[in-house]
């Protein structure tokens, strides 16, 4: 019996510690509108190389650089990153769990009904990523009979099904990372989503030289910074910070640092973009 008791005590203790730890991290991340004036919580993607990716305990990507710059300009000294999966972005902003979302977040009318956007800070477009030696795919028009990969429940996948439903076969996985290997070993022909995310994969050291970005975008995605609906003051401040980021050269430098290895340059006719009026 004593053994059982010891075990129970141990279990209870570990449960207690776990719940305490959970509390602590909640408070630490509680940026939003509450309390501490120096700290802020930002929602980013954790799983998109080049855009927003968790690398060990650090975060890398263009979105992360933009977030860091803007936050510094706004006068915060401490920044906490929180994962913002696509389906949860509006909820995170509305509930105040994050002050802003910088997570390859395209400005759309439906989303503007729920949140406000500062920016855009980058204009991306849906593009194709293929094997480096595959010259048969030159753009969306040459997709006939090809096998395409995207993510379940993403706008890119829906877009493909709408535009090319009769021409291509679509393989859907739960993350973009799963698409890469089948393309390299030839089971699938291409993956499709925003060119920034694709360039991020092509720029990863382990895929260098194996993947090629086609570079014929067939949609326009205006990446904005999502904030609480109607906060025009914050929106204005963010836009000022973005303007400064472009004019002092940091914007271009960060872009080169994140996408340079993939030889990717966002459409120069549209970038750097002019921001939309705050609403």
């Amino acid at each position, binding site marked *: 019996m004593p053994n059982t008791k010891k075990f129970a005590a141990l279990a209870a203790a570990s449960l207690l510690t776990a719940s305490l730890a959970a509390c602590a991290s909640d408070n630490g991340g509680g940026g939003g509108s509450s309390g501490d004036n120096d700290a802020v919580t930002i929602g980013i993607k954790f799983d998109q190389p080049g855009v927003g990716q968790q690398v060990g305990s650090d975060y890398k990507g263009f979105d992360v650089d933009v977030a860091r710059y803007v936050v510094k300009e706004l006068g915060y000294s401490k920044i906490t990153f929180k994962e913002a999966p696509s389906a949860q972005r509006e909820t995170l902003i509305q509930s105040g769990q994050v002050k802003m979302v910088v997570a390859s977040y395209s400005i759309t009318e439906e989303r503007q009904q729920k949140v406000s956007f500062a920016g855009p800070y980058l204009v991306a477009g849906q593009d194709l990523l293929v094997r480096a030696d595959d010259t048969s795919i030159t753009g969306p028009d040459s997709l006939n009979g090809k096998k395409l990969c995207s993510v379940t*429940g993403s*706008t890119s996948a829906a877009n493909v099904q709408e535009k090319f439903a009769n021409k291509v076969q679509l393989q859907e996985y739960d993350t973009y990372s799963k698409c890469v290997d089948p393309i390299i070993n030839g*089971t699938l022909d291409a993956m499709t989503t925003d060119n920034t995310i694709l360039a991020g994969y092509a720029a990863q050291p382990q895929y260098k030289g194996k993947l090629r970005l086609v570079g014929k975008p067939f949609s326009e995605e205006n990446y904005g910074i999502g904030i609480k609906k109607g906060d025009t003051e914050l929106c204005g401040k963010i836009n000022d910070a973005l303007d400064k980021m472009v004019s002092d050269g940091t914007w271009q430098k960060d872009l080169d640092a994140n996408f340079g290895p993939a030889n990717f340059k966002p459409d120069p006719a549209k970038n750097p973009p002019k921001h939309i009026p705050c609403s």
Partner: protein
Amino acid sequence: MGQLAELISKYHVALAFWMTIKLTVFGGLGALIIGTLVAIFRVAPINVLRWIGTGYVNIIRNTPLTLIVFFFAFGVLNTLNISLADQQSPTSIADNNFRWGVVALSVYHASFVAEALRSGVNTVPQGQAEAARAIGLSFLPSLTQIILPQAFRGAIAPLGNTLVALTKNTTVVSTIGVAEISYQMKNMIEFSPQLLYAIFLLVAICFVVLTLPVGALFTYLSRRLAVQR
């Protein structure tokens, strides 16, 4: 109710529901066939066969279904390039995903079917096997004609449980792109987030419609068919 009707028509819920049923039926059949074989291995008088049976059950039962699904989708299909559908056909991706999904579900649940059957074999009194041997039947005839028929009748309830578990586990194959009900749920949540609760309700109803009758039927059968001793 208007919301539910809108979701059903807009996102092809009926088609997704049908896919879930197909996965359940084919997965269940596959699991029954493989599981019966494994159960025979497990009670066989030859050591090597027993080891194979035990190994199968212990390895497969203790591996997450997600891993088994990925093993077939990425290891076997994508890397070894073993296809279960004509690679030239315009629906080869969907066919391959569905068929390998069924294989994964069958392989995984076969271990539970085998254990259910082995428990059924244990309900058959020793005397039955001895009597079979006494009239000159060797291992296989005595198993197939005397032991297994009684074992199945004794194992109906756990087999039913396995089928219900399989029905719910079909959701795992949505991760490799089989368009069943939880796959469609992801689409619905992404593009109609304002109907979140209606979506959950709809999917829950679909599963209740599938699993409750199956559970009730197997309970009834287990009472009806159990060998009275």
